[in-house]
């Protein structure tokens, strides 16, 4: 899962980013409204966490512009302006949820997951395809009686594939949703991790489409 964090408070980003990474999110960061808007339009994110008091372009304006340009990425507003009126305004402008500052980290994560669950039509915090169940909280996969504890990269990869069942996903897309920009790896590394997932569960779980990418389920 790749997240865009648009927030100008560097201290907040520094403490939030490792926590989000730990929960299996790839985080891209922008510290102003203009860049944030540009990134949101150019790249494929699963969710955007948007501050409202941003330099250069106000968060609410960024939100409005994105929705006008038909960017449907889920957006979670994170701001100190948290009166009920402001929350209502945020949702009316097209946000999916609104978390007031100061917040507890668990609260933010829970709301973020709720947004993604709604986005991918899940009922609870697990994904299930062909008898394979992925527990998002514990980053574990269950197949029948067997439980596999996944590494961070394996978890991110499997989560992304299971969130887009039946779709052919290119190595580049997978790489972008698993690694952050500065650590982007050669696509061969993705191949290695795909093979490790196949080894964990079954060879037929992930189908290779030569020159196009991989597909799981569907």
């Amino acid at each position, binding site marked *: 899962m790749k997240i865009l964090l648009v927030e100008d408070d560097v201290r907040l980003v520094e403490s939030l980013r490792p926590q989000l990474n730990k929960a299996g999110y790839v985080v891209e960061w922008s510290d102003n409204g203009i860049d944030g808007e540009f990134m949101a339009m150019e790249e494929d994110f699963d969710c955007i966490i948007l501050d409202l008091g941003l330099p250069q372009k106000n968060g609410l304006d960024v939100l409005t512009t994105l929705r006008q340009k038909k960017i449907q990425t889920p957006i979670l507003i994170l701001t100190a302006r948290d*009166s*009920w*009126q402001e*929350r*209502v305004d945020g*949702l*009316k402008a097209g946000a*999916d*949820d*609104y978390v007031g500052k*100061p917040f507890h980290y668990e609260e933010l994560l829970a*709301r973020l997951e*709720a947004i993604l669950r709604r986005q991918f039509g899940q009922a609870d915090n697990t994904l299930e395809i062909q008898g394979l169940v992925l527990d998002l909280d514990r980053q574990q996969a269950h197949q029948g009686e067997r439980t596999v504890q996944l590494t961070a990269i394996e978890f991110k990869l499997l989560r992304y594939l299971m969130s887009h069942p039946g779709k052919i996903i290119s190595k580049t897309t997978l790489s972008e949703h698993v690694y952050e920009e500065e650590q982007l790896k050669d696509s061969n590394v993705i191949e290695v991790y795909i093979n490790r997932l196949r080894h964990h569960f079954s060879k037929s779980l992930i189908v290779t489409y030569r020159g196009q990418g991989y597909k799981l389920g569907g």
Partner: protein
Amino acid sequence: MVLVMLLMLVTLNIFIQQLVKEQIVTRLQHDAESLVSFIQISADDHWEVNPAHISQVYSRVRSGHYYIVQTAQQTLRSRSLFDFELSIPEMQATQSHSYQMNGAGEEVWLVWQQRIKKNNQILQIWVAEDITSFQQQLLKFSIIAVLLVTTASAVLVYLQQGILNRGFAVFDLLRTNLQAVRHGDMEKNGTLVPMEISPLVSEIELLVEQLRQRIKRTRNAIGNLTHEIKRPMQILSLYIETNEGKESALQCFDEIQTIVDRELRRAKISGTNVVGGAFKIQEEIPVLLKIMKNIYPKISLELTIQKNLNEVNLDRGDMLELSGNLLDNACKFTTSVVNIEFKTAENFYLLTVEDDGEGVTMEQMSLITEKGFRLDESRQGHGLGLSICSDIVQSYHGELLFDQSALGGLKVTVSLPLIR
């Protein structure tokens, strides 16, 4: 205004002059025609005007009516011309025209001249009429008109001045009254206000009162904030120095956050009855419910809005804060269901929020109603939200009632006076 009237006069003058002249010229034309028909060749082969037919005015000396008929050989002059010597200008071909000229003595003549053919001879007919008396009358008329217009204008200006002065006197009074308000002498206001501006005055009074309330609230909020925040800050600084008790430090932090939040929200209360309907219940409340569902996904929220109740004349921010806090509270303490209802009854808006939680005991209920939540404020939960709600309700001179809900939990009813 006077200028415009003078301009109108001048135009009128010119118009009348034109009209009368045209009239005279037409008459002269007729005279010339009859003259032509009465002119004949006599026995001695001379032209003559049949004296039996021609009008008497041409025979009386200086009667103001004259004619000259000129043929190749002779000139026939009316007797009225007497000794006035005049040679009429030659005209080319068969044509006619009229002009004005100075005549005998002081007279001014309007002339009609034409050239015709009779019995194969060319005749120049010249007919004139004195227009001096007409010009004199026109001058008299003009002078009278100018005098009339000037007088009328002067009277009008005077009357208008009077009306304006009386109109502005009202504002003098208003200013005096406002000064009284500024000096804190509220009682004096509203007694001697003219009817025309009393709606304006009552609007200003409302505004002044609201501003007073808002300033009071803001001042209270700042005072409360600074006083109350010092206590947890003191404890926090001790913990940091001794580097112990992380849990208690976090508690202090929560306390600070609660205080800041409470006073910020309190300071934001607008307390305004908006004229023309500002809060769109049907549009705003569903969004609020969506936010609640995000925060409390397991609780089922039921919304009931009385039919035809679309807009209320209350500040949007205050109403969202009020319903948001009541809902938030109910969601925190409920087991599974929260109901919210908007309706009007007699002269009140009624907002009811109830839940199926454990509710509060009778003892607690009397405590919160009597003490106005003071005891509850330090605790997160019912306290904070209800305290803000109480402030908002008070600012609208409304009422906040607590009761046992049929669902089992707490039922909060807000009634706000309906202002039209």
